[in-house]
Every structure is written in C-alpha cells, then in structure tokens.
C-alpha cells in the first residue's frame, strides 16, 4: 500500500433498506494503480456497495473521500466527470444501438455543443465522440464489432463492449461488476489479461466471484459478509484467513 492519500475511500459507510442493514460501517480504500477486489457470498452487500458509490443507492451514513478530500456522495451522472466509470452485472448495453454508439454514450462528457448547433449541421462533436469510441473499442480489441447492433453480439462480446463504454470516459477509477461472470474459461483468461493491462492506466475496484480471477488480478481484497467487512488486506493473506474460509471460500461458489 502506498502512503499517498487514497484516490477513493469510504468512512463508516452504511446503507439501510427499510430497517435492514445492507452495509454497516464500511471502510474501503483504493489507491492509485491498485486493483482492489470486493468478495463475499451472495447477498453480502457487494453490489449495494457499488451502487452506493455510484449514487444508485443513498447511504444512510458515512463519508466519501476522493483524492484525499471529503466529497458529497455523487449523483450518478456526475461520476463520469469525477473520473469514475462502472460496468454492470447485467452488462446494460442499449440493444438497438450499434456497438460504437453504445460506447459513444459513455463519452458524453466530452461533448460540448448544444442542441442548436447539433441540429443544424455541426456534427463535429459526433465525430469526435465516434473517434474516442473507436479508440476505446481498440483497447478491448473489438473494433471489428463497431457497426454491429448490440443485440446481435455474443455474451462475451457484450462484456467487452461494456468495458469499452466504461473506458471511453477515461476514468481514473474503473469499477467492474463481475467482469468474468457467465464467461467460459477462454474468455475468462482473456478478461484476466485485459484487467492486467488496464492496471497501468487506472485503479480498479472489482466485484467478482471467480476466485482464480480475483487472486490473479487483485492486489488487495475486502471480504463482505452480512453487510460488514470481515477481513481485508493483501489477497494471499485474506485467502488464508480462517474467518474468510468459513464465511465464503468454504461455501460453494456461484
């Protein structure tokens, strides 16, 4: 762990769902060029943690610290401007848009022209976004899919495009929600090496069930169970923690 202030940190983050404590006093830190994994059994609060960070769920208590400074919990659409991008478990591509259009939506923050110029001829922004989108597709090696409609893609390809859509905003923090979920061994290996490559370009927060992927890419882990962090630290150490083995690793993986 570096001694510099973390890029992102939560202090005593709690989320209540009508009396049910979905998250309790979560302290989480993500440093520059670090890959941090959040693991835990189903229902442990991993996705709720992501949702709280993304403004999809309102925390009942706790603080957010970005670049060492206290920051109010962001609204969802502000994330891109804060340099945070996220992929979704359900992928969430727009089925009737083409691949490149899907990625362009992620580049929205780079668009400046208003409606009037957009309506009357100026497609400068559009072309600029398209270029950025193509570059992002290149980073996940899928430029060949650019003009396909998203609903014609194979499942592994939709995952690649979803990552391209997150990358196109040039995030400092990339949040990946089960990037390996639903993939076969070959695609998992591919995803694994992609995450290794991305590591030099941004910090990554990752929720994942596949322990192979987690152990291979994550520098540090947080283990959640019943909304609380039951263990955290360097990946290897966490894996050997008996409490973790009891709560999670002993339980069948899904």
């Amino acid at each position, binding site marked *: 762990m570096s001694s510099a202030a973390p890029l992102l940190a939560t202090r005593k983050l709690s989320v209540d769902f009508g009396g049910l404590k979905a998250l309790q006093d979560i302290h989480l830190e993500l440093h520059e060029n670090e890959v941090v994994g959040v693991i835990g059994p189903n229902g442990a609060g991993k996705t709720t943690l992501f949702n709280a960070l*993304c*403004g*999809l769920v309102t925390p009942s208590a706790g603080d957010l610290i970005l670049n060492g400074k206290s920051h109010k919990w962001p*609204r*969802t*659409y502000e*994330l*891109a*401007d804060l340099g945070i991008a*996220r992929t*979704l478990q359900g992928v*969430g591509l*727009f*089925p*009737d*848009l083409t691949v490149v*259009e899907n990625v*362009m*939506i*992620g580049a*929205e*923050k780079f*668009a400046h022209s208003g*409606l009037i110029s*957009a*309506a009357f001829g100026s*497609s400068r*922004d*559009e072309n600029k*976004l398209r270029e950025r989108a193509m570059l992002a597709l290149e980073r996940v090696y899928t430029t060949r899919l650019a003009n396909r*409609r998203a*609903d014609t893609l194979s499942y592994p390809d939709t995952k690649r495009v979803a990552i391209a*859509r997150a990358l196109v*905003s040039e995030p400092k923090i990339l949040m990946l929600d089960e990037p390996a979920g639903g993939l076969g061994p070959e695609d998992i290996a591919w995803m694994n090496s992609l995450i290794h490559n991305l590591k030099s370009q941004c910090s990554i927060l990752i929720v994942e069930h596949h322990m192979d992927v987690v152990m291979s890419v994550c520098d540090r882990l947080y283990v959640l169970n019943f909304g609380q962090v039951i263990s955290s630290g360097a990946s290897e150490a966490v894996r050997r923690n008996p409490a973790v083995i009891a709560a999670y690793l002993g339980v069948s993986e899904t």
Partner: protein
Amino acid sequence: MYKFLNTVLIGITSGAIYSLMALALVLVWRSTRVVNFAQAGQALLSTYIGYEVIQNFHSFWLALAIAMVAGAAVAALIDAIFMRTLFKRAAEGPIAGVAPIIATLGLLGLIRALLGLVVGGKEASIRPPVSNIGFTISGHTLAFSPLKLLIVASVLFLMLVLSLIFQHTNVGLALRASAYAPEIARLAGVKVDGIRTLGWALAGAAGAAAGMLQTPDGNGALSPDSLEFSLLLVFGFIAAVIGGLESLVGAVLGGLLLGLVLAFVLIYISGSLVFITAFVLLIIVLLVKPGGLIGSRRGRRA
C-alpha cells in the same frame, strides 16, 4: 381520376398534421415513457400565443416561430417543474404506473380552463399566410393549395430536422439512451433529467407547429374548448399507435396512412363514417399488431 387525385391530396395534407402531433406524442413517450394527453392543451396554448403575435406583428412566420419556441418552453417547464416532481413523489406503489397519465389528463383540463379564463368565449381565427385556393390543372381545381403545400413542406422539414437530431447527433444518442434505460445512461454520464426535458421541449415545439398549421387550413376558429384540437390529439394518438409508438418515422407514416384512409372514407363513402373508421382502425391495430403496422423492426426503438 381527379376525384381520386384530390382524395389523395386531402389525405396527405391532413395526414401531415396528424403526423406532427404523433411526432410530439412519440417524442414525449420515447424520452420519458409518459403518454402526454396534455399535448392538445399545450398545442392550443401555443397557437393562442401565435395568434397574439399575428395580431400585433402581422406575420404568420414570426408567429409560427414564436409559437414553437413558446411551445417548447411550456413543455420544458411542465417536465422540469411538474413531471420531475411527480416521478419523485409517486415513484412506487400502484399509483406509479397511472400517475403520469392521470396527471397529463389533469393538465389538459387545467390548460383549457385557464385559457378559458383568459380569453373567455371569444373565438379567434388565423388567416392563411398564403392562398388557400387550389391549384388548377387544365380547368380542374385541385384540392391542393399553396397553403396545403406549405403545410406538407413544413412537416417534412420538421421531420428532417428531428430525425437528424435523433440519428446523427450525440444529443440524439443521449435521448435514445435515456429513454431506454435511464439508470444505465446516468452511469455512462448522461444528464438524463436535462435530456428528458429536452425531449418534452422538442415535442412541445412539434405540437405547437401542428396547431399553428392546422388552424388556418379551414379548420375553424380557435377556442379554449376547440373540438379541432381534441381531434388533433385523438388522431395524433391513432397515428402514433399505427406507427408503433416508438418510432419517429413510424409516427409520420402512421399519420399519412390515417389521413389517406380517412380521406377515402370521407369522399368515397360518407363523412359520418370518418370517426368510426378512425377508431375501428385503432382497435384493429391494437388487437392484430399491437407493436404497430410500421415500427415492426426488432427492438423498435431507433
């Protein structure tokens, strides 16, 4: 031969106006998933504003432009102040599904009542900016005048601008994404609330144009309880449903199809069957092809 040609011309002209209204309804539906009954009231209000401009400045074109801007502004305000609050307050429970529909019905009544208070029972009319006397070809007068040409041309122009915005700009892309999945669009950095308001504003402008263009076309006087504007809403809806409710092109084609069918019924059969035909057509489409006759492409959301 001339009877047939005239019927087609009448159908296209009235259909073009239904298309504009259908476009307005589809725009709001696509950007916010709201069926906007208030559109007729907004169009009426905008047309009254246009009428006032004509009274003071004697220019139909200036009036059309101001009516469209006013229509856009009114629609944007309705969304930003009223609908946005409604979606937050009535987000859950059995009311969530129907609240927006009931709200727009209420708005329609409210706008008409307020207009009634302001303008009273006084009827107003808009003089056509160009001649409404039909072109003649070798002694035959066609049911197509410079005014009708203007109407069709204006609709085509507006359609072109709207489809350019939707298909070829990043704003259009954001509109399409927000309509489909607001949360995902937000995650990708789209300011969905603003984009939704923009959808309403575009619809408000289109509705205003429909009102301004239909009124001088022999469609009677302007009044707060105008039957013509109610019909505009009903026929606009039917056109939108024929077009599949999702597609801008579908809305335009739906409007033209409806206009043609009704013109043929009017001229070849009987005027008293026009309404019945419109509603029977609506019911048949809903029962047989609820996805619309035109917007049958997979996904139907482009």
